[in-house]
């Protein structure tokens, strides 16, 4: 019933429709990369390095002579899965922390809020770099770093939601039926708090893709030869003058994906009419 109606509304709005189509395309690229990509992502052809875009290689080749288009298609896998996994972890942790803080209040709430506020006000990039320095490089640590960098946002959002929902009459009504905390939190508060958090998570996925790219600039993130858009852009910086396409295409991929995520997110926010709830952060 109503659960899908807003999504449908969002898709049928002009902005929402176009951006949803782009996102479906990007996700399809990620899922079916081996079927779509014209070449393998890691086959080097050093003599054919830095070839301009042309018939054989629509987006040209990189500094190892690898087909750029194939790498961008496979890169969708890495970039999306890093962003999505990281944000999912972050959302899950944020929901738990935020729900506990918002529901129980007291010193626990104050401690969580203080810590979370502080991490929130530090630049994500710094948090990520420090964490990666602690846990070592690799995709997993990149994900952990990104998820911690965004944890604050979801914790705050969930907390604010729960605080507001906690005062709803139906919560009191259910308590009066004899329900315990567990029932209240899991049957009433969290389900109602979920939508804005998920939409915020979706919007943060876009930021996470950019953060992954920026971490790539510091040489962190996906380990070669696994392609990720961010890593491709950062290693392409060296080629900027002789083979600009190596950095332009991944940059475009990032920009298009992030813009689509934002536009679709906006359309969803409008359709779900949760703008003011997202603001309560």
């Amino acid at each position, binding site marked *: 019933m109503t659960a899908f109606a807003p999504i449908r509304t969002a898709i049928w709005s002009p902005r929402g429709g176009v951006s949803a189509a782009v996102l479906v395309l990007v996700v399809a690229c990620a899922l079916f990369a081996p079927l779509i990509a014209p070449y393998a992502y890691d086959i080097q052809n050093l003599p054919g390095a830095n070839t301009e875009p042309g018939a054989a290689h629509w987006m040209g080749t990189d500094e190892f002579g690898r087909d750029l288009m194939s790498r961008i298609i496979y890169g969708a896998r890495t970039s999306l899965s890093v962003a999505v996994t990281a944000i999912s972890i972050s959302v899950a942790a944020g929901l738990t922390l935020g729900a506990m803080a918002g529901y129980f209040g007291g010193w626990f709430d104050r401690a969580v809020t203080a810590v979370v506020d502080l991490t929130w006000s530090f630049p994500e990039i710094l948090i990520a770099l420090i964490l990666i320095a602690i846990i070592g490089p690799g995709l997993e640590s990149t994900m952990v770093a990104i998820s911690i960098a965004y944890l604050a946002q979801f914790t705050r959002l969930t907390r604010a939601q729960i605080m507001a929902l906690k005062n709803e009459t139906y919560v009191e*009504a259910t308590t*009066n*039926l*004899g329900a315990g905390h567990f*029932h209240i939190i899991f049957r009433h508060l969290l389900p109602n708090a979920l939508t804005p958090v998920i939409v915020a998570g979706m919007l943060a996925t876009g930021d996470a893709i950019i953060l992954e790219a920026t971490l790539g600039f510091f040489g962190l993130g996906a380990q070669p030869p696994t392609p990720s858009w961010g890593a491709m852009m950062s290693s392409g910086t060296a080629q900027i003058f002789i083979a600009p396409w190596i950095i332009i295409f991944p940059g475009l991929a990032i920009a298009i994906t992030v813009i689509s995520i934002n536009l679709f997110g906006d359309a969803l926010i409008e359709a779900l009419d949760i703008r003011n709830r997202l603001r309560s952060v």
Partner: protein
Amino acid sequence: MKPRRTMRAVNDVSLDVPRGKVTGVVGESGCGKSTLARLVLRLLEATEGTVIFDGKNLATQSQAEMRKLRRQMQMVFQDPYSAIDPRYTIRRALLEPFQVQGEAKTVAEARATVDELISMVGLSPRMLDSFPHQLSGGQKQRVGIARALALRPSFLVLDEPTASLDVSIQAQIVDLLEALKEELRLTYLFISHDLSLVRYFCDRVVVMYLGRVMEILPGAKTQPRHHYTHALLDSNFEPDPTRRKIVTMLGGEIPSPFAKIPGCAFAARCPAASDVCTRERPPLTNLGDGRMVACHNPMD
């Protein structure tokens, strides 16, 4: 950090609710009516005093005992619009009381139960699969009543159950409540700011002002002795153009609930206030016939 300011939303209130009767509580917005309701049902812990329900002191009940007791005492809320989880269908909302009380039901039992409940409040079982936002305010309030009745309580707190409804619907609900009371032998604590409604509906009337009980009237038609009750009655616009009257306007403003008032809470606005009134708090004195008043210079 918020500065700590303590306020007493409800201050030294004593009253009893006789079985099988309708006890009404009136008072202006913010005077602590809902807080009183919450205290009575132990949805809030009182800082002082006790609530004895059916011979049991609620404050000393364990969680499990309390849960059992809650089957006996239920509440209908002021705002029907938010009294049902917007994500729940009416059916699910009506089954929740049993789920919470750990009372498993077969599919058939569940169906029969909700059908019965919904017809009891005069709604069609067709509505069971709707969501709250698809119902009108009056219908939602009926669902709220059905839900409160699900566990077959003997005591119902009605916190301004019609305040957000139109008159034509308010009358329906009041009618329904009257019928249910007879049918199920319920005891009501009926809270309202509408003096006419309380006097129409209730056997006894408790008048509150700023968290305190000003007066308890044994019968709906008893003449008030307290100046506040009098002012309240006076401010009531009678729906009769032939009986227009000039309201004797009360001076002063309602004091802030944070203010510490040593004397009578109404002293600042009372036309008959004397020195004592501002200094000393008038006790709630029994005037006989179940009539009680907290006033130094009661009217005659």
